[in-house]
């Protein structure tokens, strides 16, 4: 019996101890009318050897195309040590560290994570992870509304330059509590928040402004001015950031005169494989004054009976298992293992390394844009500084071009026509430190051919 250790003798003797005639008798409190006799729709069990073969075949089906996709999930080098250690049974198969004395490994690691991510974002405190970047934005909006001292407003401004999927998640999640997310247009010339559109909200009672930096287009927003403007309007500022970029970009804690109030983002770039979209983790940091409004677990350092330092979950009164219906969030299981990987990643990559990853990614993406815009009919959509993504405009339908590229084993970027039809045929492309000059050249050549082919068709 796979994963069940019982011998026939065990079962017999255990039933005697229990005083039951059969295992089936243990289910005698279940109304007979409800009992089923089996699960005919489930295939027969496979041995590990068989499932290994099957999964190998399926993996090969997926292939390994050369990808220039970004849009919220980024291909970065992951040091071998990261997952070698992360998947050690003691991390992999432990539960939430409720028994602190038997969980100092996980607890200390979370404390170290909190330190790193707080410093990276320039904020004072962090939780131990949320589900992903999208849900972190939703939680941040709920938190902003909850934490706002002066306003009871349920309105949150979410510019169009915020990842459209984050906006969707925020609406699906926080919309249920009546939060209203209002979009703000972007400027066509630089792909940044349209300050005039924003100015229209001046003087209104709004809980928070969400600012994504770099924004969904990869462009850099003028975060200081935006933050100060929002604060002047009495709004809190929710920063949505790419952690890699923070090696070079001003951290949210330093935006404007007083810094953003809540900072969230997708932790995936920090050592988490792309893996079809998950598991990733959302990070969230904030000012100490808002710590009791924060959702999710938090670890604190304390002392034991002998005065020895140790770590434990703290501020649990915010959480559902204590506060139930009045908790700051319903989150229970979080994304601990991914946070573990990220902590090891940040340790291995270090401050210099992260700067280099960020710089190399910027360089590669600049070179990519340079190379691709040599192709006839391809041009950059926006002016102004970027991080490691860019929007390209094509004179032929992006979907058709992407299909041609796919046939060459290249994933050429994200077709923006669904979310940003006003851009026409637009592609969001990304290159990180993992791309070589050869990769870029290969893409450029293939794009030239693809555009020509589509034009000819």
């Amino acid at each position, binding site marked *: 019996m796979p994963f*069940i250790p*019982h011998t026939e003798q*065990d079962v017999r003797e255990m039933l005697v101890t229990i005083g039951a005639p059969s295992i089936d008798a243990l289910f*005698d409190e*279940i*109304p007979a009318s409800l*009992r*089923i006799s*089996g*699960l005919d*729709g*489930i295939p027969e069990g496979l*041995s590990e050897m068989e*499932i*290994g073969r099957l999964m*190998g075949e*399926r993996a090969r*089906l997926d292939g390994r195309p050369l990808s220039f996709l970004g849009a919220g*999930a980024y*291909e970065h080098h992951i*040091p071998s040590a990261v997952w070698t*250690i992360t998947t050690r049974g003691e991390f992999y*198969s432990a*539960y939430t560290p409720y*028994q*602190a*004395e*038997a969980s100092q490994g996980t607890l*200390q690691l979370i404390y170290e994570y*909190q330190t790193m991510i707080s410093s990276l974002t320039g904020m004072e*405190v962090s939780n131990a*992870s949320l589900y992903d970047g999208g849900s972190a934005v939703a939680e941040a909006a709920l938190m902003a509304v909850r934490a706002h001292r002066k306003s009871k407003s349920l309105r949150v401004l979410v510019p169009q330059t915020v990842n459209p999927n984050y906006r969707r998640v925020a609406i*699906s999640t926080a919309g*249920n*509590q009546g939060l209203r997310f209002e979009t703000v247009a972007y400027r066509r010339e630089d792909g940044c928040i349209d300050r005039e559109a924003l100015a229209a909200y001046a003087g209104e009672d709004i809980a928070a402004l969400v600012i994504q930096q770099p924004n969904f287009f990869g462009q850099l927003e003028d975060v200081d001015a935006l933050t100060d403007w929002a604060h002047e309007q009495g709004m809190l500022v929710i920063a949505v950031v790419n952690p890699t970029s923070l*090696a070079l970009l*001003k951290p949210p804690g*330093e935006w404007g005169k007083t810094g953003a109030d809540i900072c969230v983002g997708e932790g995936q770039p920090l050592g988490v494989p792309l*893996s*079809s*979209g*998950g598991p990733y983790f959302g990070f969230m940091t904030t000012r100490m004054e808002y710590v009791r409004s924060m959702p999710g677990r938090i*670890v604190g350092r*304390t*002392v034991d*009976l*002998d005065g020895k330092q140790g770590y434990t979950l703290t*501020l649990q009164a915010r959480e*559902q298992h*204590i506060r139930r219906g009045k908790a700051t*969030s*319903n*989150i229970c*299981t979080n*994304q601990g293992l991914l*946070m573990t990987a990220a902590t090891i990643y940040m340790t291995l990559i270090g*401050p210099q390394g992260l*700067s280099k990853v960020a*710089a190399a990614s910027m360089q590669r993406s600049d070179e990519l844009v340079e190379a691709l815009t040599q192709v006839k009919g391809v041009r950059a959509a926006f002016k102004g500084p970027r991080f490691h993504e860019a929007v390209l405009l094509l004179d032929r339908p992006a979907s058709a071009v992407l299909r041609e590229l*796919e046939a060459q084993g290249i994933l050429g970027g994200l077709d923006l026509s669904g979310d940003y039809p006003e851009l026409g045929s637009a592609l969001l492309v990304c290159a990180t430190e993992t791309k070589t000059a050869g990769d870029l050249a290969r893409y450029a050549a293939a794009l030239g051919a693809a555009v020509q082919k589509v034009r000819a068709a």
Partner: protein
Amino acid sequence: MNQILEKSIFEYSRAGRSAHAQQPPGADVASAAQKIPAALRRRTAPMLPEVSELDAVRHFTRLSQLNFSIDTNFYPLGSCTMKYNPKACNQYAMLPEFLARHPLAPDTQGQGFLSCMFELQEMLKEVTGMKAVSLNPMAGAHGEFAGVAMIRAYHRARGDLARNEIIVPEAAHGTNPATATMCGCIVKEIPVDAQGDVDLDALAKAVGPNTAGIMLTNPSTLGVFERKIEQVAKLVHGAGGLLYYDGANLNAILGKVRPGDMGFDVIHMNLHKTFSTPHGGGGPGAGAVGVSARLEPFLPVPIVGREGDHYRWLSEADRPQSIGRLSAFMGNAGVLLRAYIYMRMLGREGMSRVGEYATLNANYVMARLRQAGFDLAYPERRASHEFIVTMKRQAKELNVTAMDIAKRLLDYGFHAPTTYFPLLVPECLLIEPTETESRETLDGFVAAMASIMAEAQADASTLKTAPHTMPVRRLDDVRAAKQLDLTWKPVNSAA
């Protein structure tokens, strides 16, 4: 487990040290920074550790050894289903192609992955008796959220706008009321009777035209099967409400009875419990949701559909009534792959055995602890896959609490059961052995419990000051919450 504490990674850090092989070659930080407008540039480096690769490996390896885990210890944590996580699930979910696949890669570059997801949906439908499944939610509570949101969307779609009350039994897990609140609902708690079943009279009084639905787990968190489930369903449905099944306890009944057959309209499954994906020291999980036909249109997107031989994502366009997206991409894909592998390895028979042997183990430990003189919260009832011991008597007579027992168990090499949950049973220990533990391990646990009881009678201080063999002794939680110390600060800095 290692008994020697490890210093902070920041204490290893030295300016200029690095794990050099990890740094990308040829990066020109200065010229990249130059391209960033001065005002947008970072001015001071983040405080990340500056250590060698060996320092990092050694530090985190040592930290890992400070943990209890399934791979090292029996972990009878009630409600959490801490069963063996097969290594194959991890290995095959981490095949290079799966890891490298970008979430926005087209369906055509993911037929392998998508076929696994489709089949997982189908299998989950079968084991739960539901009509349709969405794999998006990233944990149990996230699944609850999806479920309650669908219930609300359902009522709203019918113009039934007043229904904003969610009923939960007092034994419910904290996520249930918290979820209801997150969905903008009002929580109504109802009591359970002395046998652990829902108080039907109270329920009858609670339901009404504002009832959106009820959230139940069955078997309940009291470790017993809700015998009146059919009446409950009738009452709630009769009042126009829907039934939500908290699948945290699905392990108990796998292959024996299905939520769909009990009358539930929506269910979340904790794949990290029932389907053995790892808990990872806090996560990730996966909280797939299943629904009856009437809720199908509201399922969160994306969902995997099949057209002939081709698998593809169904999105908002295919499901206009969907409650929408709950994650930026499609949930915890890698966790779902692990669950898929696990389910395929267990297969039809294996799946049914899970419920059987989880129940056998729980009833066995219950019987033996009863013999050893422990008090059961529901001595008349069968255990489901878990059961409750109450230390109420000992708390009075010997001044030892459930917490003392829990801490002392650590010294015996066993992780403590869940303590003080459910809240309504005083001094409770919720014990869930799971089906993957051998009888010898269970016997060892019972022996430890008996020995601890003897210690309590001889000299309770051994328990009150436990644990004694962990890297730290009992920690001061009160101080932790009062003197918040949430990040490491250099010794010289003004903390």
